[in-house]
């Protein structure tokens, strides 16, 4: 099927398969991407008039964001459960857990949609203040990552996964592990976005 080496087996010199090494290097680049925005947040906050960030931050909906945090945490555990199910040769459970993960991702987007439109209805836009500028930038980029992740998760929920399971079980388990690493990273970013934007 593929000429790419060391997809499943470990490469002797790195001790890792290339799939895992690749996704971790990608995650490292993502840390720098979001890191730049976290850095921007810190310096914008330092430079802002006293109380400005707290004032605009108070306009955000904490219960909705708390719900979304719990949804993403749930999606992370169902993601890792879908991988564990494959390792335990339980394909039906894999589909169920991956399905729940996708539903959680969609629920996150729906809540975010209501959050955004709620702001727009009150005349609050990214241009309204420095805080809102960095809020929409950071959460918007995070939403794009959720959408990207959902596309990949959706693919592995289709009949393509059934076919792959029949042809090469280890390959599917490996791909779900790699996809899971990305999904957990997206959860990890939200774990830090939530307190700095909503709670401080």
């Amino acid at each position, binding site marked *: 099927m593929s*000429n*790419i*080496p*060391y997809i499943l087996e*470990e*490469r*002797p*010199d*790195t*001790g*890792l398969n290339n799939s*895992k*090494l690749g996704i*971790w*290097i990608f995650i*490292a680049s993502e*840390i*720098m991407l979001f*890191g*730049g925005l*976290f*850095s921007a947040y*810190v*310096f914008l906050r330092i430079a802002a008039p006293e109380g400005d960030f*707290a004032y605009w931050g108070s306009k955000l909906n*904490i219960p909705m964001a*708390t719900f979304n*945090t*719990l949804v993403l*945490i*749930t999606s*992370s*555990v169902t*993601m*890792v*459960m879908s991988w*564990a199910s494959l*390792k*335990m*040769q339980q394909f039906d459970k894999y589909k169920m857990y991956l399905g729940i993960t996708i539903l959680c991702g969609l629920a996150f987007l729906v809540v975010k949609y209501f959050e955004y439109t709620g702001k727009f209805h009150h005349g609050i836009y990214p241009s309204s203040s420095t805080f809102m500028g960095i809020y929409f930038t950071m959460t918007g980029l995070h939403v794009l990552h959720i959408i990207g992740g959902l596309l990949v998760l959706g693919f592995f929920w289709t009949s393509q996964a059934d076919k792959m399971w029949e042809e090469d079980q280890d390959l599917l388990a490996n791909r779900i592990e790699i996809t*899971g*690493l990305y999904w*957990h*990273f997206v*959860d*990890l970013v939200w*774990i*830090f976005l*939530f*307190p*700095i934007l909503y*709670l*401080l």
Partner: protein
Amino acid sequence: MDIPLPDIVSALGTIMSTNKENRNDHIEDIQHHVKVYMNVFIALAFLTILTVAVSYLEVSFIEAFFIAITVATIKGSLVLSFFMHLITERQAIIWILVATFIAFLILLFIPLISLTDQVSNW
């Protein structure tokens, strides 16, 4: 197509890939992992509720910042360690992340150089 690595990188990889005992592919091991995942999930949910509850307390910004970042760091560590299996991962990945974290700190603090800018005194 396989791209050969320079010798020094290969040597480094060999040194880093020492914990080969961490290949937990047996079903019993996975079942044990599942219990750990559930415990981590409960801990994450509890810490989320805790950090929201603390945010309603009347504390100074510094205290609130310290609490929020500490809780977020604990939650992040749980996700990294258990869901992303970093606790049993090869050292090559740990070193990639250490290098990234150092680069992130440089990125975070490099704007402080602007404080040495003397333009405002001219």
